[in-house]
């Protein structure tokens, strides 16, 4: 059955309409969780507010389990679901640059749109920076194309790389997440902040 658009069960325009609807859900949940606030987001790096860690890992695990169960029930063909390719060099380097941007800017791209939607001007300026950063990447593309394409490993799953089944990996990830949630709850008590 799924994915609907890949299996051509819905038209391209329906797919784009559903993208808009799913986007509304995305923005709504981000805002309801407090992701429109940069100081709340940055809190995870100082321990006073770990909402990022809790929401992020709960979401990743929910979707991961959902996909595994959907596949088990025959509702989705996982072979048709896009697995992000792994270019090891750029995955690490890009991640490091994004990490610097995160601690300086307090937002990531998705959350900055969410923040801007409720009037956060710092989020709006961050978005201006995003456009500039993407443009700079585009302008100098030839300069970093080598780095961008280096160490291509295909689209491996982390479970394959570790030599275990998807289910076992998911189980271990859940245990790790529970341990992190425990540390997160402890950190919020240890480094409390009343108002920010």
């Amino acid at each position, binding site marked *: 059955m*799924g994915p609907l658009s890949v299996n051509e069960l819905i038209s391209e325009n329906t797919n*784009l309409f*559903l993208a*808009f609807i*799913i*986007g*509304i*859900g*995305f*923005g709504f*949940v981000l*805002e*309801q969780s*407090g992701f*429109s606030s*940069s100081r709340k987001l940055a809190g995870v790096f100082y321990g006073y507010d770990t909402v990022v860690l809790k*929401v992020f*890992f709960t*979401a990743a695990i*929910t*979707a991961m389990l959902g996909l595994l169960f*959907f596949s088990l029930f025959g509702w989705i063909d996982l072979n*048709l679901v*896009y*697995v*992000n390719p*792994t*270019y090891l060099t*750029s*995955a*690490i380097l*890009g*991640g490091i*640059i*994004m*990490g610097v*941007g995160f*601690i*300086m*800017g*307090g937002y*990531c791209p998705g959350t900055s749109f*969410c923040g*801007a*939607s409720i*009037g956060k*001007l*710092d989020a709006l300026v*961050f*978005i201006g*920076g*995003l456009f500039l*950063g*993407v*443009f*700079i*990447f*585009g302008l100098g593309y030839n300069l970093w194309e080598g780095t961008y394409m280096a160490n291509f*490993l295909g689209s491996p799953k982390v479970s394959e790389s570790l030599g275990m089944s*998807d289910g076992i990996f998911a189980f271990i990830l859940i245990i790790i997440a529970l341990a992190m949630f425990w540390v997160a709850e402890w950190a919020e008590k240890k480094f409390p902040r009343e108002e920010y």
Partner: protein
Amino acid sequence: MTKSKERKVRPYINPYVGGVLLGLVLLAANFVSGRGLGASGAIKSTVVTAMNTVAPEASANSGFVKEFGEAHSGSPMKTWLVFEMMGVLVGGFLSGALAGRLRFKVEHSPKITSRRRLIFALAGGVLFGFGSQLGRGCTSGSALSGMAVLSLGGFVTMMAIFGTAFALAYFFRKNWI
């Protein structure tokens, strides 16, 4: 100085509930389109469109635009992520309106000025924008969506983003605490 708080602001939802809901949104994205969520891809679409419009000749020779064209047919603005991000603006606004959080504001630590906050926001945005292109997606498209489909690259990028931010947190503490 007294702060007038005439409007009632509703609290945020429980983060674990928020996480499950976000996970279901991500699951829905995969079920419908066969791909996860994203954010920086919509910005890339816009930048490619701007480059095509402002400097069509230079743009046609750009490896960046070519690479984008190979992955997307049709207009760069008629892509899944562009529509999804328009939805994010609507969804965020609706949530903020329901919760009483709509307000123009520069959010920052009381220890720093708004001006300093905005300079750092701009610099952070530039770096995040650049990094999202190099890393083939941001926190949404590469880290979160990648993790949900167990992509090795997704896990690597996630660890690099959060690890770096955590490692540098001490140097930028004045901005936040």
